[in-house]
Every structure is written in structure tokens, then in C-alpha cells.
């Protein structure tokens, strides 16, 4: 799926009217099948950018095009159908605690299912093999019939990723998808997700705190700082100096990400506290 942003300003709907817009003048496009990582210090507007692309937040100014059409000009019904073709994975996995993992994963299929099918699937899960395979790829096959509230934070995050893997979406928007995983698991989860996206021909836009991982796995890196696009470069052209400038005055976040990329023996770096207004 192709997405384009042109000179977009955006603000969180709950923000006070006088607050500065979370994003200012963003111009960015992603081609079908492309994978790009969004990096930047906390509060740079990464989550807002993903919500914009997910048609969850209308731009205040500028233009958003998804596959050539402007989603906010569409009727609500058509827009909802378009939303069925994209998949936003929030940083905090949105899973009801009493649900079983298999149901949570298969919820990613809902846009492609009729109401009757989805109700039948509550009584007997519609496609257990698909859910099992997605979970197996993320090393969670044994949790298939567990309840979500029996899982650890990292396991929940991987269940949310598995939901994207089974979804019919062609645009995956991942908000810090590996923030709760240990370094080895993070590597593996990213690799699996990107492989699967390639197999589906899905476009991936992921915001990441671990810059090292972004450089390892994504061919294209977008830097955001204070709501403005700092750079949009192929990974080969990204110099440490540019990264240092992106994280100026937020060096600990850049440092923290480097320790996180060290071998598994090291304890997982404390995740920087990110305030997400939801």
C-alpha cells in the first residue's frame, strides 16, 4: 500500500487548542512493500505520525493520501473499509485481559470476516492453524489457549504483533513494537515481522527507540524531532553525527538503545518512560 503525506500538520485531539501542533509540515511517502523506521527522542511526534497514517487522526493542514485517495474525503463507511486494510499496533498491547490468546490473535482477521463468522469464531476459533503459526514464529506457540492476563508484558507485545501477522492489512503501523522485549527476542521479533511483511507485500512503518536495531533491520530511516522531519535517508547515508544531532539533549535515549543491542547476558535496558496521551 502506498501512503503519502504532504506538508501535514497534526495535533492530538485531546491537546489544548493553544498547544503547538505535534507534527509540523511533514512530507513523507512510503511505496508498497517498503519498510521504514521512525526514530527520534521522546515527544518527537512518532506516535502521532503513526496515528495519522492509520487514519485515526485527521491532519489539521496538508494532505494524506492512502493508495492515491484521501481518506478523510471518503464517507465513514468507505473509510472504515479502508481502515480494514491497515493495521495499527499500539505500544501498549490493546488486549482484553480475560480473552484467550487465540481469540486475540484472530481479532486481526475481523475486517475480513462477516459478523456471523466472527461470532462463530468466538465459540470455536475460525483458523486455529493460522493463529498457531503466527505465534510459533514469535516463539509463543505454547500460549495459544492461555488467557491474556496470564502473559508477561513482553509476551503480550508479541501477541499484538501476531495479530498483525494474521491480519489482511497491507500497511502495518507498529508503535514501538519491541519496547518490552529483551534484546534477543527483540531482534527475532523484528526479523520475523519484516519477513512476514515482505511475504504479504505489506508496507511497514515502525517507530523504534532502539536506533541500533532500526539500523540493522530497516533499509530506510526517518528522523523526527520536535514534530519536524529531521532526515529521511537510506541507512547507508545515515552518519553517527546526524544521529547525535537528532538526539541532542536526549543522549541517554541514544545510549540506552546501544546497551539494549548488546548480547542477551546484559539485563534489558530500562525502557525510557514515554508519556503517551491516549
Amino acid at each position: 500500500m502506498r501512503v503519502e503525506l504532504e506538508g501535514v500538520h497534526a495535533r492530538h485531539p485531546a491537546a489544548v487548542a493553544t498547544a503547538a501542533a505535534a507534527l509540523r509540515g511533514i512530507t513523507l511517502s512510503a511505496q508498497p512493500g517498503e519498510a521504514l523506521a521512525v526514530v527520534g527522542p521522546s515527544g518527537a511526534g512518532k506516535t502521532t505520525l503513526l496515528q495519522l497514517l492509520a487514519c485515526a487522526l485527521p491532519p489539521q493542514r496538508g494532505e494524506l493520501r492512502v493508495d492515491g485517495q484521501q481518506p478523510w474525503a471518503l464517507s465513514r463507511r468507505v473509510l472504515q473499509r479502508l481502515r480494514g486494510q491497515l493495521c495499527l499496533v499500539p505500544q501498549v498491547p490493546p488486549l482484553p485481559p480475560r480473552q484467550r490468546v487465540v481469540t486475540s490473535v484472530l481479532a486481526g482477521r475481523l475486517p475480513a470476516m462477516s459478523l456471523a463468522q466472527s461470532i462463530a469464531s468466538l465459540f470455536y476459533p475460525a483458523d486455529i492453524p493460522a493463529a498457531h503459526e503466527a505465534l510459533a514464529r514469535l516463539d509463543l506457540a505454547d500460549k495459544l489457549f492461555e488467557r491474556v492476563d496470564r502473559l508477561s508484558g513482553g509476551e503480550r507485545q508479541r501477541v499484538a504483533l501476531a495479530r498483525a501477522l494474521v491480519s489482511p492489512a497491507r500497511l502495518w503501523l507498529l508503535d514501538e513494537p519491541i519496547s518490552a522485549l529483551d534484546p534477543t527476542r527483540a531482534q527475532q521479533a523484528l526479523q520475523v515481522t519484516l519477513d512476514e511483511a515482505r511475504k504479504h507485500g505489506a508496507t511497514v512503518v515502525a517507530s523504534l527507540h532502539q536506533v541500533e536495531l532500526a539500523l540493522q533491520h530497516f533499509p530506510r530511516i526517518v528522523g523526527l524531532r520536535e514534530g519536524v522531519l529531521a532526515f529521511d535517508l537510506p541507512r547507508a547515508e545515515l552518519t553517527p553525527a546526524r544521529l547525535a544531532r537528532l538526539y541532542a539533549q536526549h543522549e541517554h535515549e541514544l545510549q540506552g538503545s546501544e546497551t539494549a543491542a548488546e548480547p542477551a547476558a546484559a539485563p534489558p535496558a530500562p525502557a525510557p518512560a514515554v508519556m503517551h496521551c491516549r
Partner: protein
Amino acid sequence: MDAALPHPALRDPAWRGRVVLMLTVAVLLWPLFVATEFKPWTLLAPESLRVSAGFLASFFPPAHGGDFLLLVARETWRTVAIATAGIVLALFVAVPMALLVTRTLSVSALSGRMARGPFWLRQGVRWLLVLLRSVPELVWALVFVRVVGLGATPGVLAIALTYGGMLGKVYAEILESGEAAPTTALLRNGSSRLQAFCYGLLPQNAAELTSYTVYRWECAIRSSVVLGFVGAGGLGQQMDNSVKMFAGGEVATMLIVFIALVALADRVSAGLRRALA
């Protein structure tokens, strides 16, 4: 004369207003007492004391004839049936309306403010629910006894309407009170409202919804006995008949059965709710 009055600064300035208020209340209440024939002392008049004592004395022994006990058993069962059928019908009213009202299931509210059409639809259904529950079931029962005649049907309909409004409003409140993120995420990824309800809201709130429904069922059993007094069938109607015939023994038996029934419903409902928690 004037010397006897204290200095104006020492008089309570609120005093005059207080006296006026009390006189007004008395003047307003007097016609009400007259209109309602409020004469509590007649309760203690020797004549009424004699009648009450006679009636209470006739409570013992409670009636225990085989035929009568069979009748009481049948009517007790009918009372439970009225309550259960009423609640089931109420669900047909409450569930669709609660789904219509719940804000969390709004697609247009995903991107900030809810659109005007859906907003007024939600508001309209909410008012309808308030209207349904603000008319007491006793009034509905009186209306339906006129329309469909004596028997269980008016009781069932009365409970269905009042409890439909009550359940619908409380369901919507329960659904809105929980964590909205799972439902919002499903809606944002293109699910329909009902799908988002089944996969997001329901697993989160199912226990609370069921527990409240069971509690209301228990309330319906109690209220269906009262409904019987206006002719809506069940134990209440029999009790009303026996009271009018001054058959104290029968009244006593039915009161005992009624207390046992309410206690049993209370135990069952508490047990079910504990199992669900």
C-alpha cells in the same frame, strides 16, 4: 413596652424568615394531611386494635391443607416464571439499546469528536431508556391489566419494560466505564461495531454484565410478588385474595413461602455472582 424589647442589634435577624417558612410549610401541609386522611391515632382506637389483633391471631396456625399447599407451590412457580420471562424480554429491549448508546462503539468519535447524527441518535435512545425506567413497573402493570386482563401477562410485560430501561442504561454505563483501548484498536483497524463489541468490550465486561443481570433477576422476583397485588398473577395475587377474605392462615403460609423464596433467590444470585467474579 419598648424598653422590654432588646436592642435591634441583639435580635436574631434570621428569626422572622424562619417563622414565615414554618408557617408556610404548615399551611401547605395541612390540606395534604386532610386530603390523605392522615389520622394515625385511628390505628390505636380500641375498635381497630380489636380487628388487627383478630386478624393477626388468625395467622396461627398457618394454612397447611394439601390442596392449598399445591396452589401455593403453583403460584410460587408462576412468580419465578413471571420474573424470568420478564427479564428475558427485558434483555431484548436492553441489549440493542445499550449497544446503540455506548460511546466506546462510536466510529466517528475515533478521530476526536462524535459526528452530529450519531450523537443525537445516542442521546435519543438514552432518553428513551430513561423514560422506560422512570415509569415504575407497578404503573405499567396497572396499565397492562386494563389492556390484556388479569393474569401473568401484564406482570411479564411490566417487568420487561421497566427492567429493559434499567438494564439498558446500566449496561451502557458498564460498557463505557472499562478500558476502551482494546475496542478502539479494533475499530481503528477496520472492524465493525458489533465485531469490536464481541472481541473488545464483551470479554472485558462479561462478568460484570452477567452479575448485574442476575442481581436484577432477584429484584424482579421480589417485584413480581408486588405486581400480583394489582392482578398481575403469581403469589401476590393469591395473597391479595386471602387478605381480602381475612383468611389469616393462608396469608401467613404465603408470607413464609415468600420470605423463603426471596432468601433463596438471594442465595442463588449471590452464589452465581461469586462464581463469575
